């Protein structure tokens, strides 16, 4: 599904504070595989996601999704196959537009004919059933402005928006970190459900070691723009949070 081949990215190349954020990083993720990703601050986790979504172009290396080389594609074209969700609940939604308008745009994926109505009854009914399973009462508030929702509600909506069009690959960057424990738990449960149902390939960045081992089927640790650890199956089963902690190289944060 996702193949990253020797991705290389140096920020501020040639400057005194230049920094190698991705160092010949290679990674392959199969369809339906759910990996968690850990690593110290500044390890390059978000940078890896930004490289995949197209926020910047790589210095060298290739990225392939579903057999299609997307290395040179602009971000909006990559978004057909990639859904992403960030820590900040504000990032994924348009606050002055209604829930149904936000969902309609996300669902259309730029494929709706331009002069057809932006919101249709049929879509609204579909969104209502999708929102109902969140158990947050959002299904009755389709015409509410998204800016009025709580962080948890907005993140739930963002989760639905990033997966409603069936992206194939889902990238989650600490997407529950800004939420209260109850909301975070709820979003986690929904995330797992959706990933399983749609058989998505997914990577979830987290700083919660326990979660990194419990969620999904594979745990990847990034350090200085390289994969420092990549475990699944038996090796992962045998790993304890305490043992995993040992792998964090102390002092990376102070180097930043």
């Amino acid at each position, binding site marked *: 599904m996702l193949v990253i081949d020797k991705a290389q990215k140096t920020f501020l190349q040639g400057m005194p504070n230049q920094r190698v954020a991705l160092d010949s990083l290679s990674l392959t993720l199969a369809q339906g595989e759910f990996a968690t990703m850990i690593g110290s601050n500044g390890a390059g986790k978000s940078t890896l996601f930004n490289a995949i979504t197209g926020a910047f172009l790589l210095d060298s290396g290739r990225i392939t999704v579903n057999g299609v080389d997307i290395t040179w594609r*602009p*971000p*909006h*074209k990559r*978004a*057909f196959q990639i*859904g*992403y969700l960030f820590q900040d609940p504000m*990032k*994924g*939604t*348009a*606050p*002055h*537009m209604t829930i149904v*308008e*936000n969902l*309609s*745009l*996300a669902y*259309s*994926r*730029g*494929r*709706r*004919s*331009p*002069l*057809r*109505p*932006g*919101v249709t009854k049929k879509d609204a009914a579909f969104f209502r059933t999708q929102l109902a399973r969140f158990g947050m009462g959002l299904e009755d508030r389709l015409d509410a402005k998204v800016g009025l929702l709580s962080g948890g509600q907005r993140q739930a909506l963002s989760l639905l*928006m*990033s997966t409603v*069009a069936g992206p194939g690959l889902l990238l989650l960057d600490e997407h529950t970190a800004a939420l209260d424990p109850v909301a975070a738990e709820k979003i986690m449960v929904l995330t797992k459900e959706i990933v399983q149902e749609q058989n998505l390939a997914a990577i979830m960045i987290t700083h919660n070691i326990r979660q990194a081992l419990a969620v999904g089927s594979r745990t990847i640790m990034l350090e200085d723009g390289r994969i420092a650890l990549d475990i699944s199956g038996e090796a992962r089963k045998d790993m304890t949070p305490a043992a995993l902690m040992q792998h964090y190289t102390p002092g990376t944060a102070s180097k930043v």
Partner: protein
Amino acid sequence: MTLLMGSLHLGLIYGLMALGIYITFRILNTPDLTTDGSFTLGMAVSATLTVAGYPAYGILLGILAGALAGVITGLLQTKLKIHPILSGILTMSGLYTINLFILGDRSNVSLLGASHLFSWAAALLPNAAGRDITRLALTLLLACGCFAALVWFFHTHLGLCIRAVGDNDDMVRASSINVDAIRILAIALSNACVAFSGAVAAQYQGFADISSGVGMMVVGLASVIIGEMFFGRRSVTIGLLSAVCGSLLYRLIIALALKSDFFPAYALKLVSALIVTIALSLPAVRGWLQLARVKKEANQHAGN
């Protein structure tokens, strides 16, 4: 009566421009200074073609020319990454030359004796009162038509995309929509409305002047803001409606002020600038007042 009639006409005609300003200023959330140039552009195209005997084409091509000017500003903003304000100023400056060229290197072109939309409308009914009515009906038709078309458009998928780009373009990009293309389209649409306004204005007042566009952006902003004072900021439909109504009110206020010798005609632009400044600074002023009150209360409590 003539005062009211005149204000109605001007309010509706410049209401078209207010609609354009509303699109960039409120929906796209990026003020666009192309306006001053594209208003005159619409005027110049309309006047030149009217003199040549094609008033209807004058309006149509005027609109198209405005859209094209908007595309240029949009390209400067998105593809060349020039600051939005500067992009508008660059296009506006360039348009000054283009407009002079279209007017045949004259700063003023009169439509005296040429037939145009308003002379056609006036010819429909014989007496003076009837003429006033048909002329007003024409302006009303154009303004309502444009308003209705925009309301429809902003509820289509494309319209939704434009509104979302003004709100959170990251979200639009994540939805596989080309943000740059949408932005260019919105600026083109806005300037098409502005040029439409200029094109109709030329035929209504019977001349085109190279300096007609100066300060138009501020006039449009004033209209939008006056409208919002009455309607608030709610949906797009109400927003578009409030832009037109704001333009009507603005013209009425100005006409009354001029008639009562409250200020001379040449003070118009300064007054418009003041209206916009005051309206835009209201939130900040309210914030200061509130802060002052909170501080005072806190000091009182501390004193107790």
